[in-house]
């Protein structure tokens, strides 16, 4: 089917017009068809807000700024903007300018009011709050900080007063503690005075030891490490030895237990006093024998000779 020239031209112009309008609305973040409503707000300082900037609720883009101008009645910045119809902007909502002008990303946040209040009508007015930048939040929190600091200072004052009253009382514990401390310090001072020479010589020795140690550790750090390694080996061996010793000791313990109980030869030896007595008498007899032997060696030598003969 051959289309007339008029139809072609008309269709292309209409299509272009539709694309233009929808395209501009699309990039302006307007919905393609009218489902938004317009609201107004006022700022002392718009901080670089311009038409086309995004309007966000809880971080979600829901609309954009239509117009920013100075209200001649009160010299404040009047901002007209629109948001999606689904967004419930209710009484008690407020607006805040946020973002950084220096980075070119300024936007407006709408903080929604409580869910049970009435909806703001189309074209209605929403109050604004100051920009919540670092300084703003700091100055918001400043009264709380000052209150807390005030409380802390009051407490500090009462503590100081208690301390002073404690110190003022001549019979108070604090006073006496201080007095005895003073005495101790005096004694210490006298001692230090008396022993000054010795202390200085001790310090010199310590100094010498330290420098020796330094020398040992300084350039010859390796030898120290080797020593430590050796020491470790020695310790390990010592550990082994101690284990053996432990076993030995328990054996000895067991033995001594037996001995104590009077079991075995040594036990009888230790526990039987009869042996002692007999030994004692034996030694007495031996003594008498030797005395006799010294006095009359002949009596015994005769028999010794007999023994020699064999």
């Amino acid at each position: 089917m051959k289309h007339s020239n008029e139809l072609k031209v008309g269709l292309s112009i209409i299509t272009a017009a539709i694309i233009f309008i929808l395209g501009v609305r699309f990039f302006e973040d307007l919905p393609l068809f009218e489902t938004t409503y317009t609201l107004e707000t006022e700022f002392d300082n718009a901080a670089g807000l311009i038409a086309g900037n995004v309007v966000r609720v809880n971080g979600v883009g829901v609309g954009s700024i239509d117009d920013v101008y100075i209200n001649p009645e009160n010299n404040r910045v009047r901002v007209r903007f629109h948001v999606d119809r689904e967004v419930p902007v209710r009484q008690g909502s407020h607006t805040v300018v946020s973002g950084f002008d220096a980075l070119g990303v300024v936007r407006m946040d709408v903080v929604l009011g409580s869910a049970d209040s009435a909806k703001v009508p189309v074209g209605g007015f929403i109050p604004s709050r100051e920009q919540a930048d670092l300084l703003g939040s700091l100055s918001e929190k400043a009264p709380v900080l000052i209150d807390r600091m005030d409380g802390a200072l009051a407490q500090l004052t009462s503590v100081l007063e208690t301390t002073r009253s404690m110190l003022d009382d001549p019979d108070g514990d604090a006073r006496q503690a201080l007095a005895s401390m003073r005495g101790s310090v005096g004694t210490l001072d006298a001692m230090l005075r008396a022993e000054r020479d010795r202390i200085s010589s001790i310090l010199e020795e310590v100094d010498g030891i330290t420098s020796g140690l330094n020398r040992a550790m300084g350039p010859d750090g390796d030898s120290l490490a080797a020593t430590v390694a050796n020491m470790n080996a020695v310790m390990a061996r010592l550990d082994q030895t101690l284990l053996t010793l432990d076993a030995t000791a328990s054996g000895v313990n067991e033995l001594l237990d037996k001995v104590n109980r009077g079991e075995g030869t040594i036990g009888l030896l230790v526990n039987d006093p009869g042996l002692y007595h007999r030994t004692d008498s034996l030694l007495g007899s031996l003594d008498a024998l030797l005395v006799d032997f010294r006095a009359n060696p002949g009596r015994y030598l005769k028999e010794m000779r007999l023994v020699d003969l064999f």
Partner: protein
Amino acid sequence: MTRNRSIILAPAVALGSYSLLLFHAFSSLGEFGSYRKNVVRQMVRVGVDSLPIVALAAAFSGAVTTVQTAYQLVSPFIPKSIIGAIVVPSMILELGAVVTGFILAGRVGARIAAELGTMRVTEQIDALEAMGLNSIGYLIVPRVIAGVVMFPVLYIAASFIGIAGGLFVGHAGGFVPAGEFIDGAREFFQPFDPVFGLIKSFVFGFIITSISCFKGYNTLGGAEGVGLATTQAAVISCVYILIADLALAATLL
């Protein structure tokens, strides 16, 4: 008229005769009814028939802009949405109108100049005059009107297809997701940008068609003269598109 004088004054003479031609043309707007059919035919030739080549060029310039912007953005601190924020305004402000302008300077400007030049050297224009028709009104006004009306249409098509091409290549090529591309474009979108583009396209449409008509209508000589007029129409249209581009940007942005 000495040679020296003509070199110095030639531009002024050309500007004067160009203005007079246009003045004659638009003073005959009252006879518009008699060449309404001609206007529509020219609109189809200038506008509708140019859509495929304009769409092709726009799609590729959008795609290339996206790829090159992605290539140049190496810093990890710059969000990828910046690609959209660069490609879309570039397309709307500059490429949509200028790329279309260059293509139409070649395609439409050359054809108008060749048509009118041939009519001039074959004395058809004189025949129209002899038949009592206002040749300037009949030949020039429909073409200029067609350029001024259809060029914005082509500009809108070029911008739309260029942005779509950039978006598609950015997404399909993995340079920037479509959502981020559009977010970036929205973040930095100025409602005046497309209006400025439309103004540009009106001006470019007028420049191309009127210069080509002027060159074609005043063709001298035979076939060689037609060739010269055609070349001059295309080249001078391109030069004046660039000059007008700068002048508009300097005054309106």
